[in-house]
């Protein structure tokens, strides 16, 4: 058929649709875009934007990339998990399944939208760092920063779909995403700059895919380093997590609302057919 929308067109439409939903959910927009900025203001106000002893970078240089990553991960992981779980509960996924939009296009729309929103969060955070806190862009490391960002986002988007696949209902997903992301963030250089953390904390941080994302991304904005800053080990950790999560999510994912939804039971008497 001549007017059949191309797959690319469908994906773009889905991204725009998800973006629209994001902007109309102010609480999600606040926690993804504004809250991390507030933390940056807070940290630099508390510690001053001095060089952190033993780390060789300023407070903003340490925290801004980590908070940018944290914001982007919220856009991928939390928003996808919560949004998808509620969309299933509300029968929206079922509706989509009955349209010509292939399931992969719907997923791609969600991922594309989260990458776009995550990118916005990163640009705002790094932009504020450059404008007010003496950070600078390092052109030789921009390619590494971009690759790290994309790999990290795909990894966390897959984890978001996995949470949506296993969550018993929509209401439980914020608890699952916060209950996993926040503790991991505390050992992943997002909220605390530790010069000499205990070994177990390093181990836990290195195991989960958040600290690798933070470290690889932060080093791309560190003016004291040289070279293109590709962190192959960190990229490998995120890729491994992403692949396993994606495979599990595909196996476990359901489109139908879970559980039996009660229906009104009505059996109303028919009117007799009057002849006379």
């Amino acid at each position: 058929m001549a007017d059949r929308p191309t797959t690319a067109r469908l994906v773009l439409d889905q991204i725009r649709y998800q973006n629209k939903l994001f902007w109309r959910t102010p609480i999600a927009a606040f926690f993804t875009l504004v809250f991390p900025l507030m933390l940056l203001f807070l940290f630099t106000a508390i510690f001053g934007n001095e060089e952190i002893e033993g780390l060789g970078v300023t407070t903003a240089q340490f925290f801004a990339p980590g908070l940018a990553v944290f914001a982007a991960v919220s856009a991928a992981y939390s928003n996808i998990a919560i949004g998808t779980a509620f969309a299933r509960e509300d029968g929206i996924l079922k509706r989509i399944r009955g349209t010509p939009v292939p399931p992969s296009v719907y997923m791609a729309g969600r991922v594309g939208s989260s990458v776009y929103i995550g990118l916005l969060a990163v640009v705002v955070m790094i932009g504020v760092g450059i404008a007010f806190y003496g950070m600078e862009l390092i052109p030789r490391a921009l390619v590494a920063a971009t690759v790290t960002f994309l790999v990290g986002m795909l990894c966390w988007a897959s984890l978001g779909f996995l949470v949506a696949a296993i969550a018993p209902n929509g209401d439980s997903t914020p608890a699952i995403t916060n209950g996993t992301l926040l503790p991991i963030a505390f050992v992943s250089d997002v909220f605390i700059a530790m010069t000499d953390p205990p070994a177990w904390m390093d181990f836990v941080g290195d195991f989960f895919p958040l600290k690798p994302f933070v470290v690889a991304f932060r080093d791309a904005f560190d003016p004291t380093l040289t070279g293109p800053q590709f962190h192959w080990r960190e990229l490998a950790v995120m890729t491994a997590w992403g692949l396993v999560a994606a495979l599990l999510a595909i196996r476990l994912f359901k489109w139908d609302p879970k559980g039996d939804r009660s229906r009104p039971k009505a059996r109303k008497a028919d009117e007799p057919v009057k002849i006379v």
Partner: protein
Amino acid sequence: MPVVEVSGLVKRYADVDAVAGVDLTIEPGEVFALLGPNGAGKTTTVEILEGHRDRDGGSVTVLGYDPATGGRELRERIGIVLQESSVEPVLDVREAIDIYGAMYPRRIPTGDLIEMVGLQEKADSRIKTLSGGQRRRLELALGLVGDPDLVFLDEPTTGFDPSARRQAWSVLENLTSLGKTILLTTHYMDEAQHLADRIAVINRGVIIAEGTPDTLGRRGDGETRIEFSLPAGVGIELIPVPEAQRMENGLVRVSTVTPTKTLHELTHWAVAGGLELDRLEITRPSLEDVYLELTDG
């Protein structure tokens, strides 16, 4: 070529056969109602036809495709009207129709659809501000936006009050006049009777009767029922027709296959005796009676 052809369809849940050998044929332009009580297997059957569920046996063809593998091509030609509202409430009506419309190669313009379902006043309102009935009309619009050849309507008026049902019916009649093939599920007899060209009654996973609203069951050649209250001071044995029975509610019921003759005898007898037959009513067995008889014996 039939739009829908189903033969020997089986779906098992655990050890229960939710659908136990259903055969159906729906011709182009036909409004076909699948009528049955809750849990009879109608939603399961329809969801298999829509491609939402896999089947365990039998063959199914929808618009020439097997719905299990029909994918995008099939879904471009069907429209599914869900029983429950399922659109993000933060969108407005026009946006939602535009978003879904953009998925189809053919489409009914958003403005026309909004008019068809009577949502002009709410076109630019957020979906969360819509009443229950308005949401169902939006559902209908979303099911039709791709100008489908076959429309699935799953219990389109469940939970409606009588006036909302009449309203919904007039929208659906509008739809049938467009020549669409429609598969309707319902547990309302009057709805099937009102909207459908052909009705299949399903119970415990099998089709137990099939026909037009007029011929279903014994309805076409069934008996006519004459009812009236027994005049004061008159014993039932005095009534001059042999089929007379006294009912619990004080009425006399006469079931007859020759209503004109029987009625004539009755009224002649009453007039001659100066009696008035209060609450006189003549009815044919309603589809409801046939249905209740079929579904729970």
